[in-house]
């Protein structure tokens, strides 16, 4: 942790190679903090609309229901945070092969989650314009899924980079940034999951 703070807020970078890497990490952190405000605006919208509107669930619509598939999906996504952390540790210890394996596992887990999301969408009895439940549900899960797609894309980029000879060092900081991004997306999912599924609608 202190290492992380050092990396992010440490001494002014100047023009050294290390300094520039630190800048990257600092920039990514600032970006994620800023990006989280988009989600905050979504969460607040959800809470406010949910509490104030009478037309949340049109008649005959149940809304998103907590099911075993969603729970498995969630477990897979959240544990991928652990896997990516292990991958990060591996690359810090210069264990390239282990890194690639763990890194790839993360992407596979992310993909599993994505497929699960789209399957769930298909099975639902409401659409985008079905009351406010449809609007909030599809936009917010969709926006989150978009972030997962970006995350997987970045992971692929880093994976390819890890095969470029001499590029190892650059991959290193990229890896930390992508992993930070992934933790962020996972954290957002915890809140979305609580809002969309745990906070059950009254009929």
């Amino acid at each position: 942790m202190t290492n992380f703070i050092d990396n992010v807020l440490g001494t002014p970078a100047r023009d050294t190679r290390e300094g520039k890497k630190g800048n990257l990490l600092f920039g990514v952190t600032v970006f994620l903090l800023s990006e989280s405000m988009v989600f905050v605006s979504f969460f607040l919208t959800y809470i406010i609309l949910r509490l104030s509107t009478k037309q949340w669930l049109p008649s005959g619509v149940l809304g998103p229901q907590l099911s075993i598939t969603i729970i498995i999906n969630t477990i897979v996504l959240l544990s991928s945070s652990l896997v990516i952390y292990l991958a990060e540790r591996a690359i810090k210890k210069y264990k390239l092969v282990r890194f690639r394996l763990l890194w790839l596992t993360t992407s596979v887990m992310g993909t599993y989650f994505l497929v699960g999301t789209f399957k769930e969408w298909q099975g639902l009895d409401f659409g985008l314009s079905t009351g406010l439940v449809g609007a909030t549900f599809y936009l917010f899960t969709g926006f989150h899924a978009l972030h997962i797609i970006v995350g997987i894309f970045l992971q692929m980029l880093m994976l390819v980079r890890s095969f470029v000879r001499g590029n190892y060092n650059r991959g290193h900081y990229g890896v930390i940034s992508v992993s930070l991004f992934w933790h962020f997306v996972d954290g957002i999912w915890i809140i979305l999951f609580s809002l969309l599924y745990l906070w059950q609608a009254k009929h």
Partner: protein
Amino acid sequence: MTHSSATNLKESQIKQQAWKRYFTFNTDHKVIGIQYLVTTFIFFLIAGILSMILRGELITPPSDLVDRSLYNGLFTLHGTVMIFLWIIPSLVGLANYLIPLMIGAKDMAFPKLNAIAFWLIPIGGILLLSSFLLPSGSAQAGWWSYPPVSIQNPTGYPINGQTIWLLSIIVLGISSIMGGVNFLTTILRMRAPGMHFFRMPIFVWTVLSAQLLQLFCLPALTGAAIMLLFDLSFGTNFFNPTSGGDPVLYQHLFWFYSHPAVYVMVLPAFGVFSEVIPAFTRNPLFGYKSVAVASFGISLVSIFVWVHHMFASGTPSWMRILFMFSTMLVAIPTGVKVFAWTATVWRSKLHLDTPMLFALGGVVMFIIGGITGVMLGAVAFDLHVNNTYFVVGHFHYVVYNTITMALFAAIYFWFPKMTGRMYHEGWGKIHFWLTFIGANLTFFPMLPVGLQGMVRRISSYDPQYAGWNILASLGAFLLGMATLPFMANLVVSCLIGIQAPNNPWYATGLEWATTSPPPTENFETIPTVTLAPYSYGLPQYSTVDTTDEEAIKRHGN
């Protein structure tokens, strides 16, 4: 071929490329800064022409020059372009040019990101303006785009002006966030040795405070724009009152950004005043530390005042009172700044060169803008003049008369640094007086006519308001003409102006310690900072350099 002719050849090649690089994907922060300034100035001219059409319509009471929907489109795009494509990005361009020089860095932290952020500006801008060509016409819901008006689509075209408006707001927002990340990283991590926080020029402080606001508040607007886009184009009902949505929620999200945005705009302008005024009074900035800290204070308070734009939107009374007080609170750190500038000027020997004229003019007009703002912050008064020209008068006193004048001050002040040539002082002064007179003539009449009850956003009005409106329209045309000497001056001076010395104003900032224009990586060697900023009075910053006749003439010492 001798050695010297070889280098000459190289130099002439560099010269030839010099102007071309402004049209390329260049990653030098100085090139990008000028790209920003020129591009946004073009948008300023376009938005200015739109406003002259608006004022042309309002010169007579009936609606005769343009029809209703075109009038709506004109004021919508006028406001949007002025705010999102002139004021905000032009200050970003200025900061882009200056920040690395002022803190002693070679470039911004992320040069490529910087270039991408710039190129999104013309893309977003052209996208926005092209909506005039759509069969459905441009967006008409005003620069704030409140639903339910903004989610109606009477024309039935799947892509209409409002969709384009939302897309370009999202594009411009992404550009701003990229800029914010870049500025924050650069200022916090790339300062030269010895450049402590309390040795940073005020301009750096103000950009830092403004960019923190961008990063924290702008995403709320992006979120709102995404939801509005879904309402408009994909049948969702976030803000649609007829299907359970909440249009007031949009107003909250919009103003949560757009109120702080006024400080994103005005803080760097305050920064410019704080650079220019000490340089032309030869006094250290009075109360440097409190001015620096006040920048943060302003940012912080401005996050908690957005509801003052919604006093008339069915906001409960307790909330109105709360936000009335927080609004009044902003006056304190702002007052600190105005006091500091006044105290700096106090008993000094004034040098009234063009940048100083614009700075002083800006400060004076900000006092009117600020006072009318505090008046509007009072709930009872606001409910009376809400949606009248009083509000229009207030924010133009701030946005045009303060911020645009600060930008002119900045352009004249740093012109020698940017181009290596001096501008023409006489034409600069003509530009100032035309602007100063034109701006007051345009915007002052809006205050009394608003108090009398003339409603804004309409193309026809009661004949009793005609007198003030004719004055305002004449002023607007004068303001439009005032930009002509400005442009002529800059273009001609750029080409044949006299060679500028490295530090024509004997100013103290690090940017003056390098050549005019600065070399590619700004400094021969990265300087070490040992002095407090604004140490005017030290021999090296003295204008009474008896060996430099030019300087003596320039400063009348």
